[in-house]
């Protein structure tokens, strides 16, 4: 392990680490454009130059392409380095349009940041002689390019070639005419296209979904995970709720991937990235609904839960636990499913319960991140013994079929919109044959229309929860803002249900619930809320997956 000195401070680095990463170990930031830890090193921008002294001989080197070696002395702050950075910046800003007032990247732009830190020079370029290039150009359905702002670092080019293997972008022309453009005949429409906006160190590539929506400094950032599929990519939720704007229906402004070496590295897929819109959709279910008498006053969530509990209890009393079925969901969190298990399986002895159904939407699966199983917590459901009904395989479908045939007096549905899951005829039959349907839903849909009692539940950005991804890694979502309307987290529904049904489920908050799981399930033993941490934690008895660079092995298309 090489031992070197950076700005006078000793640091020991793993073998083969470059100087930018070595400096990061000491929290020293070496300015750079073309280097990205997830991409190959090209060493083209020259922004990362530092002074390197090896056995008494001083020289200038680019930090991204210099490996840390024993006895090196690095100077990242000196007269010489400052002058170098200033000159490089002046070069990049020579033809730069200085669009900052209309540039979405302003506030998180490396040209701005480095200029304020290292540049502060006056431009020697007369305004009229600045080179003009393409502005506001669509390079793909979601991405807009402004090539005047591009610093030609080729990070986006490398992303498309190395990570997705699709190669849609390239640099054309040379000298001051060099310009980033689409490779002829290709548009940037791969499933991971949104990542080029994240890798772009400046505002050259912007996201149509976010363009002009908010200034970055207004937003608050919360670490969370994506619940779009069973991978559970680590993300940041950038949100903003407290300023008065024209569209309050957009509390989440954008999602950004958060580095996690063993889950998603630096990336996330577009389906997850733009999936947040459902949180503030117009058809969010904001208040409970009931078909029975509501005494004329505004209905409270508690009242509806009381109704559900009373109906379930009376059904069990009269016809036994076999008359109740729970169509549960693998999109519920560990806590939800744990309480569901405690309440229905453990206490009420209801056996007709399942989470896996044939009608559940299947996604596209690929070598990078996307998993075809779109439920974020199927592994959790299995670990928590919310088991397939009647044995293996399509147990869930048999449960549904039995429900349609009217085998159950009471059916409790969690999340699934059964009206789109089956034919209209079957759905009508289900409704006709079932005495009582209770439904927990975040959105209004066909089932909220016909169910007897409906409880609005919170979505992933409105509640803290843990999910177990396909690897067996338990990860946390955060709660940047409150649930819409009267919605409450699903576990609270079961807790209140338990209070009414006389089942002891006295947990004060979601962390309590999670911490209690370990007392009942071996795989969660000893895992508590704190120990899950920001990067997640593997279940007991499940080994960490071995690290493999996320990269497609499909060969590059020739062009």
């Amino acid at each position, binding site marked *: 392990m090489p031992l070197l000195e950076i700005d006078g401070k000793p640091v020991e680095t793993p073998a083969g680490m470059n100087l930018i990463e070595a400096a990061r170990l000491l929290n020293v930031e070496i300015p750079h454009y073309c280097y990205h830890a997830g991409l190959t090193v090209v060493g083209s921008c020259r922004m990362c130059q530092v002074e390197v002294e090896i056995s008494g001989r001083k020289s200038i080197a680019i930090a991204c392409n210099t490996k840390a070696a024993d006895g090196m002395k690095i100077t990242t702050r000196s007269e010489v380095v400052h002058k170098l950075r200033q000159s490089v910046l002046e070069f990049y800003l020579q033809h730069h349009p200085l669009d*900052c*007032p*209309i540039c979405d990247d302003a506030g998180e732009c490396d040209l701005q940041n480095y200029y304020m830190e290292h540049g502060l020079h006056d431009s020697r370029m007369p305004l009229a002689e600045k080179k003009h290039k393409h502005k506001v150009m669509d390079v793909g359905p979601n991405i807009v390019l402004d090539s005047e702002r591009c610093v030609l670092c080729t990070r986006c080019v490398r992303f498309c070639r190395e990570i997705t293997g699709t190669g849609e972008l390239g640099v054309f022309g040379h000298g001051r005419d060099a310009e980033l453009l689409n490779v002829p005949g290709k548009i940037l429409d791969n499933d991971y296209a949104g990542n080029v906006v994240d890798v772009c160190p400046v505002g050259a590539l912007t996201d149509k979904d976010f363009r*002009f*929506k908010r*200034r970055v400094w207004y937003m608050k950032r919360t670490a969370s995970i994506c619940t779009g599929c069973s991978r559970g990519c680590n993300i940041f939720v950038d949100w903003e709720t407290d*300023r008065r*704007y*024209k569209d309050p229906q957009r509390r989440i402004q954008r999602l950004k991937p958060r580095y996690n070496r063993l889950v998603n590295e630096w990336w996330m897929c577009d389906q997850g990235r733009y999936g947040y819109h459902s949180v503030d959709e117009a058809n969010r279910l904001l208040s409970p609904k009931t078909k029975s008498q509501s005494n004329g006053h505004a209905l409270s969530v508690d009242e509806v839960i009381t109704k559900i509990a009373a109906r379930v209890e009376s059904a069990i009393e009269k016809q036994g636990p076999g008359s109740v079925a729970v169509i549960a969901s693998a999109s519920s969190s560990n806590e939800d499913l744990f309480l569901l298990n405690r309440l229905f399986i453990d206490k009420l002895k209801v056996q007709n319960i399942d989470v896996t159904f044939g009608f559940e939407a299947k996604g596209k699966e690929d070598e990078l991140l996307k998993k075809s199983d779109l439920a974020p917590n199927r592994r959790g459901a299995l670990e928590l013994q919310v088991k397939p009904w009647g044995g293996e395989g399509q147990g869930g479908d048999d449960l549904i079929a039995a429900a349609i045939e009217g085998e159950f007096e009471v059916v409790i549905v969690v999340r699934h919109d059964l009206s789109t899951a089956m034919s209209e005829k079957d759905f009508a039959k289900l409704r006709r044959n079932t005495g009582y349907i209770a439904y927990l839903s975040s959105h209004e849909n066909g089932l909220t229309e016909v169910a007897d009692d409906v409880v609005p539940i919170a979505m992933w950005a409105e509640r803290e929860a843990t999910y177990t991804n396909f690897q067996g890694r338990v990860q946390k979502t955060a709660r940047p803002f409150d649930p819409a309307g009267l919605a409450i987290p699903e576990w609270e529904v079961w807790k209140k249900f338990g209070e009414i049904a006389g089942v002891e489920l006295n947990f004060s908050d979601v962390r309590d619930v999670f911490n209690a799981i370990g007392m009942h399930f071996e795989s969660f033993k000893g895992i508590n809320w704190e120990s899950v941490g920001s990067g997640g934690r593997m279940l007991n008895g499940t080994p960490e997956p071995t690290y493999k660079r996320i990269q497609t092995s499909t060969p590059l298309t020739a062009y």
Partner: protein
Amino acid sequence: MITVRQVREVKLSAWQNTYYPELWRGMFITSKHFFQNFGRFIGRAVGLKVKRPLVTFQYPEERRPIAPRWRGRHRLMLRPDGAPRCVACMMCETACPDKCIYITAGEALDGRIEKYPVAFEIDLLRCCFCGLCVEACPEDAIRMDSGYIDLGGYSRAEFYLDRDYLLKDSALTTHSQFRGELDGVVVTRVDLLAQAKHH
């Protein structure tokens, strides 16, 4: 954070409760100022170096001159081609200490500058007229009028200025319809500057 302060009721003394002494005390204060001011007028008339007396302007017929550095209600400027100068960069909104500017940005698809304000609202009732918005603007798109102190209106809504209202006043005009009826004359900035200098 909300802090709660309890305001105690002021207890009047028995003396104050008898009412008449306080009434006369008030009359005394008013008269004192009247005669003091009267004395200053006479003093000035006979050429004594006394303090400047207070004058009453017969507003709105007669207007008090405004200092040239006075800055009042905002207006948004136009480009020569008629488009708003504002690019909805939200610098003013960010700089505003009273958080009274609300901008919604939109994408212009007509080949002009790509970003423009779809909505630009200023809540004048919250504004403290600090001028930081003008200072912050990189486009010289927002200015504050230098002519008028009389922002009058019959409802709160009249003080909630929207984009089109702010834009139409690139020239100096009055605040409300009501105000326009009252004076009938549009005083130009030049007049006001001249008045101010004269004074």
